[in-house]
């Protein structure tokens, strides 16, 4: 069965840490990290490698910081 693996790239310096994307993620693969960016916001990252590339997080992100890639294996 074809499996889909996704990956996100976050523009860390533009992320404002609003956490709206966390609720939108169906696989709970993203989380806020403990580190902060240049403006002092905790930013989001893909931490569990369960991303399916569904683009939900990118679509609700108010600042458009997320770029999504997806590959079939």
């Amino acid at each position, binding site marked *: 069965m074809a499996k889909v*693996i996704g990956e996100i790239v976050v523009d860390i310096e533009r992320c404002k840490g*609003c956490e709206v994307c966390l609720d939108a993620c169906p696989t709970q693969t993203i989380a806020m990290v403990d580190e902060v960016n240049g403006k002092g916001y905790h930013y989001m990252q893909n931490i569990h490698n369960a991303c399916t590339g569904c683009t939900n997080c990118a*679509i*609700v992100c*108010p600042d*458009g910081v997320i770029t999504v*890639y*997806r590959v079939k*294996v």
Partner: protein
Amino acid sequence: MEETITKSDIIKPENLVYKKTDLMTDNVLSYCPGCGHGTTHRIIMETIEEMGVQKDTIGIAPVGCSVLAYEFMNIDMQQAAHGRAPALATAIKRLLPYKTVFTYQGDGDLAAIGTAETIHAANRGENITIIFINNGIYGMTGGQMAPTTLEGMKSSTTPYGRDWEMMGHPLKITELLAQLPGTYFVSRQAVHTPANVRKTKKAIRNAFELQKLNRGMTFVEVVSNCNSGWKMTPVQANQWMVENMFPFYPLGDIKVDGELVKK
């Protein structure tokens, strides 16, 4: 087999599925974290990109939080005086009828100081699109009561909640405009979940396409949050919006093809 795929194998241009549109400039948005303005800006720009009308679109920026919308939208933009965006859009559309003209206004701009301009532009049936962001508060100036503030809702000028006997009832300007014969498409949407974002994008696309038919004004209200004005976190504000704003401002199409949708 699956273990051999690394991050660098996935992150390649041919695997790209979603990226911020180039019609949004690289300026960092001036909005608070979690504000619906950013999402709405982006879906408007995505719609324009998909329709391929970047060169033929003129946007009107309002006064309010989105006063700097022209810094973020990489299209022709004009800044209007407070509340006068529909009047300016009328002028631009009449002078350049082949352009797609839209205004982007908040509730303090459209439903308070610009009520006259909005209602008369709608009543004249101007062939423009209005994107109306309703967060029930004056966000830019510090969360004062707006005409759209809900009954009992606390704001910095109504610390005990809005009392209708003293401050009047909340104004449903979208329903009001739908009653006028000059409007052709009126819809109310939200941008707090992926599904709602997709629906809003569809409504905006519909509004832009119907504008070319020259049948009247197309109007899309986006119910949004104002987490700093409501004194909540963005996630709490979205939750509060679902529980309190949506019962009074129900989502969905209100007027389609010039006919009111019966509920």
